[in-house]
């Protein structure tokens, strides 16, 4: 039993590690297509974004609509560092590490700044604040001068060695998972979830709510910033138009689709959505391309209503997927019902 749970704790690392190794073997033997390598990069970046957003939305219970803003900060500042250092240091690992450090730290500082309002604001107000933050960041980068960050033209960044950059992306995914997952599965994670469930009780139980909210926002922003740096490395040009409100929403869709507070769910849905995005982009061309957005919107609404509507509570308990697959759980549920009847 104990062994089984500890295996379960590492299953996502193992699967991602295995996939990476398989891909490396495939690319060494020349089977892996360049387009697949690009898709893998995209998937890795989306996983990082989804897992980091999940920390704030799923575990801390605050809605952030500015996740693309943090990514934007990382992409621009990391990309700028890379562009500056590429000449003296070479476009190698050293430059990448420097870019990641700068991008991550700057995004983290922004996370701290957004975390400050989060201490006083809740729910809708905080959501709109994060949204406003994302738009402010984008507007600022859009209006920079050409020499600094490219302004409306965008920032030119060095494209990393194409063939195996996805390996670095997946290593970053593993680091993201390591930090966020270990955080969640510790007393600190319990404190964060306790704040989500009942802030007043959390305070009364001695939890330093200020500290944990800031930790949540900062970490989430740092990893979004790192994802942004990786993004800048996969492109020749970083344009602030990409990091708009709709991009934040797309990440939110991934998190909601994967189930709030479910990291593995976020990973699977990040893979699924990114893959689907590409496939649909091939099938749905021209005016039909927007069908994809319509599908996402409908899925988002349907899932949230299905999972949260008070009227559907009985239905959800009856047709619980987990329950259908695990007899043990079912037995537990029935004993719970027995307890309820007893009282």
């Amino acid at each position, binding site marked *: 039993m104990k062994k089984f749970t500890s295996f379960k704790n590492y299953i996502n690392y193992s699967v991602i590690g295995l996939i990476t190794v398989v891909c490396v073997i495939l690319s060494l033997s020349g089977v892996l297509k360049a387009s697949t390598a690009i898709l893998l990069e995209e998937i890795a970046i989306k996983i990082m974004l989804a897992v980091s957003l999940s920390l704030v939305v799923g575990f801390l219970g605050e809605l952030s609509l500015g996740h693309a803003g943090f990514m934007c900060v990382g992409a621009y500042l990391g990309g700028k560092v890379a562009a500056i250092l590429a000449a003296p240091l070479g476009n190698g690992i050293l430059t990448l590490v420097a870019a990641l450090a700068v991008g991550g730290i700057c995004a983290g500082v922004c996370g701290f700044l957004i975390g400050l309002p989060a201490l006083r604001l809740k729910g809708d107000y905080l959501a709109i604040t994060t949204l406003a933050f994302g738009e402010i960041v984008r507007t600022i980068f859009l209006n920079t001068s050409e020499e600094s960050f490219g302004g409306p033209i965008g920032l030119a960044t060095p494209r990393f060695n194409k063939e195996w950059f996805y390996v670095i992306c997946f290593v970053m995914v593993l680091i993201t998972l390591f930090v966020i997952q270990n955080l969640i599965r510790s007393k600190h994670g319990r*404190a964060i979830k306790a704040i989500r469930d009942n802030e007043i009780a959390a305070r*009364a*139980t*001695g939890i330093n709510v200020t500290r944990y909210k800031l930790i949540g926002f900062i970490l989430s922003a740092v990893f979004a910033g790192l994802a942004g740096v990786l993004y800048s490395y996969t492109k020749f040009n970083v344009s602030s138009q990409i990091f708009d409100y709709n991009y934040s929403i797309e990440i939110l869709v991934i998190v909601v689709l994967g189930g709030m507070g479910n990291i593995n769910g976020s990973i699977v849905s990040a893979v699924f959505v990114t893959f689907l995005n590409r496939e649909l982009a091939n099938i749905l061309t021209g005016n039909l391309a927007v069908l994809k957005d319509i599908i996402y919107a409908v899925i988002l609404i349907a899932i949230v209503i299905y999972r949260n509507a008070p009227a559907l509570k009985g239905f959800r308990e009856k047709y619980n997927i987990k329950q259908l697959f695990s007899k043990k759980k079912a037995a537990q549920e029935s004993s719970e019902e027995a307890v309820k009847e007893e009282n």
Partner: protein
Amino acid sequence: MAEVKKIYADDGREIVLKADHLCIQFGGLKAVDNVNLEIKKGELYGLIGPNGAGKTTVFNLLTGVYKPTLGRFYLCGEDLTGKTPAEMNKKGIARTFQNIRLFNNLTVIENVMVGLANQIPCNLVQSVFRLPRHKKSEKEYYERALELLKVFNLDEYKDYLAANLPYGKQRKLEIARAMATNPKLLLLDEPAAGMNPNETQELMDVISFIRKEFDITILLIEHDMRLVGGICEKLTVLNFGTELAVGETSEVLNNPEVIKAYIGE
């Protein structure tokens, strides 16, 4: 750092909670007006009064949810006036809530483990990098939480989500969580509200038991007179935010003023 000077009553027992002239005003309304409390170590003290008398507001003052407009209070001689709720808890005041506030999506044992978090140190870096300290502390949280659950007869439900517990057990879990923070003073806000007579009796037994077992001082708000008369040693009666009567339980419950406030003329 303010000087901590323990206060003792005339009979030589330590005074755990001393509140002097607590007042709070919301707009023009004086919700609590000049309330004084003196609770000795190990005492089970009752705070009663009709609806809207300001009982829960007193709790909110003592746990830092509100800051008193006037007056100060001391826990074991230390002035805690104006501290935040989390600081109050760390100093040794734990509470339960009138409308149950559990961490609904955590399991029963996790709820208690959250309460233990400040007892055993383990910082963020130690947790994220899974240093030995983390493993050791997690094991200790689990074991100590399980012990506490056993005291409250909740150990068999340890893996249930708190939201799925029946009402009476949720109330008990809330007390267990408060106890996990190792308080000097436990504040119980209507612990028997909504319980049937059997559950109330069971709760009274648990309260008496933890009081002896953990050598703790308890201040409780209650409407159930049977429970108050059965276990409280001393009472303060509030009415419209002011003290109506203070004294031994039997005395106070026979006080004509108190009967008038409760039943009317």
